[in-house]
């Protein structure tokens, strides 16, 4: 694995974040969507701590 792979993983993580945030905007107040997206976003944050935060240092 090299810097390109880390950058590629970061791109995918950011797409996941964008997708989750779009879903939250369109949830029409449905709690079953909103709360599950919140949990997904918490996991995306952990991916960012593990990959995105370090991408420019690898």
């Amino acid at each position: 694995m090299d810097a390109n792979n880390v950058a590629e993983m970061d791109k995918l993580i950011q797409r996941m974040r964008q997708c989750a945030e779009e879903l939250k905007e369109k949830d029409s107040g449905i709690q079953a969507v909103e709360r599950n997206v919140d949990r997904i976003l918490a996991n995306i944050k952990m991916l960012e701590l593990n990959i995105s935060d370090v991408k420019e240092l690898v």
Partner: protein
Amino acid sequence: MLKDCGLYWNPILETLPQEKLRALQLKKFRRILEWAYNNSPFYRRLYQDAGIEPGDIKRFQDIQRVPKIEKGMMREVQQRAPFPYGDMLSVPLEQVTAFRQTSGTTGTPVYQAETWTDWEWWSESWCYILYAQGYRDTDRVFIPFGYNIFVAFWAGHYAAEKLGCEVVPGGVLDTQARILKMQELRCNAFMATPTYVLGMADAARNKLGIDPAKDLNIQKITCAGEPGASIPTTKKRMESAWGAKVYDHIGATEIGAWSYECTEQPGGLHVNEALFLVEIEDIETGEIITDPGKEGKMIITALDRIAKPCIRFDSKDVIRWADYECDCSRTFRLIDGGVVGRADDIKKVKGVLLAPTAIEEVVRSLSELGDEYEVVVSKRGDVDNILLKIEILPGKEGEQESILFRLKDQLRVKTNLGYKIEVHPFGSLPRYEVKGKRFKDLRKTGG
């Protein structure tokens, strides 16, 4: 080329060169400082009073200009709104999904708010610990702990699940039922305080006729809550009693799980420098210590904790950087021997500084002594007296004179102090289920 993915939870961060770790820490420190400044009235006041703004932190050395916080400040802010956390809170109350509190050992408990993201972060930090200690998805992990308002082992439970282990929650079962359940399910790992690791082994042998080292299947034990797993003689006792590897980790409710021993057991613990910034401060001069071997108190920042940020917290824990490296190839620095004392716990007795862990190390080095002991410091007139209560193992009573001679001799060498020794019948000193309270200083109460 990346190091072996099978050895590390995150090989990118755990093998990042030190200079890059410093760059990562600076970036994350600036981010959490800005977050706290913008979202916590407490932190904004603190920094404005000190004339600090987030943009002022440009170089790593600038971090030392940021004011420290102490536990007393955490207690004080709890008098302010919003109830019950106070204005250190940096998120709206409706985003808080869990309440935890400190044990209150040193005073009024500190209340800790967790958002779900913070809770994922807790689990994540524990994943680093457990993976480094060899936990994998083939493990069946028993947690013999009554889960409650304290954070202890909640995060260990969630992290073990996250890395695929099968978790057996021991909850409200009593000690004997827990041992039998571990045996029935052939659990191969568990997590507990050192006091309880030894207490369970004692109960297994003496109440159930079970030898944990032979009749159970435990291969690894993760300790928390007390320094025992980093005290070589106590670690040896635990490993011998269970026929298992015993690993230490260090964490705190208001900080997070910041340090861990790996399977190489190098004699120290790795600091998770991707998630935490640890500074060691000279207790007398306040200078930051970067050289190995010199003790100081820990100033720690949780770099990613959101609901109740922990920025430059003066933990009072006394630590020192190790002057050796670990064969595991992690670049996270090691602290030698774990937390070696507390700045507010190291007692001055007869004019000599005494760390309670030094007494434990000597007592547990003598194989003829039981696991339990108690130290009582009192004052008669102007003179301090130290009473050490011990138990001699059954069958060894005839060797009492020789045992006491060696005990006194080693205590004098290790602590430079003289002790009155009291031998108690085996099994008569208090047994503890979570943390032991073996050091009693009666001087302030007129004892």
